[in-house]
Structures are given as structure tokens and as C-alpha cells.
């Protein structure tokens, strides 16, 4: 889908209204009832085949059950389509109201180590234009481990941008979790072999700072006290998010665990408000002149 541009006549959309409208539209459409009828016919056919070797009375039941299952499947598929379309329409209008751009589908960013991790990755709901000139994109990043029954999907809300010049070869600030540390030991990145303890006990309690071997001085130069305080401020405002920050050369990614939902769009603005000071600091460090605008609503998403 193409980028959507601002339409000044739009009013703030309400997701429930958008969803109801889509539902009405679907029910009115002739194609939908065609699909339900087709589902019933296919179901009846399959039921008939299933019941061939049975008695005539059982056969009739199989045809009837097949018809019902086919029709229900078609109804559910239609319902899922309503949800998908309503989501896309809502986010498109919501983003346009803020003079942002929205794209429902796209390829996930894979230019930092964490964004490359996982067996598979998926991305959706791309928002951009909230910090003009910065090239920043906020989107839903899915990290998929394993397959089939063992498949584990972890959803992140990610912010990605690239600086004009590389800031540091690698800096990872990841949630301080024993499970995560153990996981990374087995599945993680062998390139990271320097864990750096900075002067803040609180930072150490929440985050694990790591970089390449021999880069401790560079990390310390970058993570000045005011930078540490910015990270702690984020952690305090959004304690449940397992926040993660990563810089690989000039590529920057901030992530928190979470799902973008049209029912809670304020999460996007809340996160942008909390991420802005950290992004500003990195852009300043990289010598960029971009001035990130204040968010309209800077509520804490926690």
C-alpha cells in the first residue's frame, strides 16, 4: 500500500466506529454472502465424501455438518478481513491526522544485531514522519523462534533510524534478565564479549551494557551521566517494557516488548515522547542538526 498524505478535513478517528463501518460494508457486499454460500457448498461436498461409507441417515448428518462448518469458516474469514481492513483504515487516518505516514506492510529492518536475531522476522504497521528529517520509523517487529508447535513469537514495538555517521561499532543496552542472558549465551551473538559496568547501580539493576572487546572507553565516553539518566528515566516511565537500545555503526534501534493496537494508539505517542530525549542525544552526538519536535501528547504508556 502506498503512503497516505494528510487530509485536513479528517476528524480524530474512533476505532470502534471504523470497525462497525467495515462490518456494515462487508455485510452489504454481495461477494461476502457469495463466499459464505460457497463455503457451505464446499463443506457439504466434503461432508458427503466423508459420509459415503456410512448409513444414509448418518450421511445426511455429515452433509449438514459439513455445510455448517463451511459456512462458519467463511463467516470467520470475513470477520478477520473486517478486523484487518478496519485496523489499516484506522491507522491510516490516525497517522494522517498527525501529518505522519503509515504503511501497513513492509520488510523488517535487519541492520542491527538484535533486529537480525530470531529464526524469522516479520514487520507491520510502519509509522514515519513524526520527527521530520530524522528518517525515523516506528513499527511492529516480530521475532520468531522455532517452527511448528515450538514456534515462539515475541512482539516488539521498534523505533529505527540511521545517523549520518557511525557513532560506535556496537553498543547494546539490553534488559537485565537472567533468562535473557542465559538465552543469549546459547543463541546469542559471539561478537559481543565485553560487558561494561557503568557507575550507576540502578542502571546495572535494569540493563546490561555490552560492546565489542576493547571498546569500553568509547562506551564510557558516549554514556555520560546525563545519557545514563535519560535511560533510567525511560525505564522508570515504562518499567514493564523490557526496553532495549542498540547502536551498530550508524544504525540505531530502540525496542520494547508490546503490540501496536488500534485500540491503544496512545502507546505510540507515549513511546515516542519517552524515546525522543534519547534519540536527540544520539543525533547530537553524531553532530546532526535535526531538532525533534515535541510530541502532541506525552503520556506515560505504562
Amino acid at each position, binding site marked *: 500500500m502506498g503512503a497516505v498524505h494528510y487530509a485536513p478535513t479528517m476528524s480524530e478517528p474512533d476505532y470502534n466506529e471504523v470497525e462497525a463501518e467495515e462490518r456494515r460494508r462487508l455485510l452489504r457486499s454481495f461477494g461476502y454472502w457469495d463466499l459464505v454460500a460457497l463455503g457451505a457448498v464446499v463443506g457439504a461436498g466434503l461432508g458427503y465424501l466423508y459420509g459415503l461409507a456410512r448409513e444414509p441417515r448418518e450421511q445426511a448428518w455429515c452433509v449438514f455438518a459439513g455445510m455448517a462448518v463451511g459456512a462458519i469458516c467463511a463467516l470467520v474469514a470475513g470477520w478477520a478481513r473486517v478486523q484487518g481492513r478496519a485496523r489499516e483504515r484506522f491507522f491510516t487516518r490516525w497517522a494522517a491526522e498527525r501529518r505522519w505516514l503509515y504503511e501497513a506492510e513492509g520488510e523488517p529492518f535487519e541492520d542491527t544485531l538484535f533486529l537480525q536475531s530470531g529464526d524469522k522476522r516479520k514487520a507491520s504497521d510502519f509509522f514515519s514522519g513524526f520527527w521530520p528529517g530524522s528518517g525515523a520509523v516506528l513499527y511492529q517487529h516480530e521475532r520468531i523462534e522455532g517452527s511448528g508447535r515450538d514456534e515462539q513469537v515475541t512482539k516488539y514495538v521498534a523505533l529505527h533510524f540511521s545517523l549520518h555517521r557511525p557513532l560506535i561499532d556496537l553498543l547494546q543496552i539490553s534488559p537485565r534478565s537472567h533468562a535473557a542472558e542465559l538465552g543469549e549465551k546459547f543463541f546469542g551473538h559471539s561478537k559481543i564479549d565485553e560487558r561494561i559496568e557503568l*557507575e*550507576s*547501580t*540502578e*542502571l*546495572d*539493576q535494569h540493563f546490561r551494557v555490552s560492546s565489542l572487546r576493547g571498546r569500553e572507553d568509547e562506551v564510557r565516553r558516549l554514556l*555520560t*551521566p*546525563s*545519557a*545514563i*539518566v535519560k535511560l*533510567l528515566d525511560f525505564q522508570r516511565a515504562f518499567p514493564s517494557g523490557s526496553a532495549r537500545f542498540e547502536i551498530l555503526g550508524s544504525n540505531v534501534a530502540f525496542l520494547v516488548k508490546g503490540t501496536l493496537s488500534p485500540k491503544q494508539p496512545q502507546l505510540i505517542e507515549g513511546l515516542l515522547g519517552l524515546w525522543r530525549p534519547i534519540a536527540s542525544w544520539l543525533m547530537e552526538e553524531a553532530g546532526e542538526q535535526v531538532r525533534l519536535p515535541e510530541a502532541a501528547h506525552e503520556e506515560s504508556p505504562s
Partner: protein
Amino acid sequence: MTAFYAVLALFAFLGLLLTFSYNRLVRLRNKVAEAWRDVDVQLQRRHDLIPRLVELVEAYAAHEGELFAKLARLRGEAENASGPDTKSAPESELAAALGRTIAVAESYPSLRAAENFLSLQKEIAETENEVAAARIIYNGNVRIFNTRIQTLPVSFYADLLGFEPAAFFQAGAEGTV
């Protein structure tokens, strides 16, 4: 015999707990010391900027001699003080005097527009931010360390092992620049 082993196991377990606890306290105390060194570095940056500011402003506002003398005296006092408890008061006064000096400088349009003043002002503002942030980190470390040694069961033996509460570094007039 079984009772003897049970008591032995209990003592070994307690000894292990004490060792872990002691090591953790040492780590926390080292963090407090490290954070204080950081505060000290930022304060030294602030002190180093004062002569440059005085030199610049003196050329325009020679009649503010009293303010400059006070700035020099407070800088001396702050440099002579050591440790967070004794440094808090002179550093607060020094930050306030620094703010006043900047305000005086800003009342001279030609000085306010001078490039070297603007760059010095930016440097001072950055330093003040770093001082404030370093103080937040130091006080955060002190709070965690003090809570640890003042709560049960560590409070029973912290004193015996030589751990004493650390002093907070009080907020001054930082951020006024």
C-alpha cells in the same frame, strides 16, 4: 552424628550467605565511590570554566568586582572541600553565583552576542547538566547502598564489617544557568 552434620551444614550455609552478602556490599560501596569520582570530574569541569567566564565578563563589567571575588572565594572553598557532605554547601553557592554571573553577562548585548561567550555559555550549560546527572546517579547509588545496610538482616552485621551509610550530595542551584 547426624545432628553434628546438620549444624555443620547450617554454619556452612550461613557462611556462604555472609560471603555473598559481603561481596555485594563491597560492590555497592565501590559503585558509590565510582559515582562520586564522576561527580568530582564534572565539578572540576565546572571549576575550570569559572576563570574563563570571569575573564570574559570582567572586560565588560569591571564594577562587578565583588561578584567576581565571591566567585573566586567559593571556587577555592569548593576545591578545598572533600567528600559529598562538605562539598554540598560551597558547590550550591558556587552554582548560584555562576548563574548570577551569567545573568550579569547577558545584560550586555555585545557580550551576549559574542561567539566566545556563546560557546562558553553552551559549555557551562552542558557541564551543569552533567553535574546534575552525575549527582542523580551518585544519590541513586547512595540510596541503594544505604537501604541495603540499614535493612534486615544486613543491618545486624553491616556495622561490624565496617560498612557505614554514605552521605548524599545535596542539590544545589544546578540547572539555573
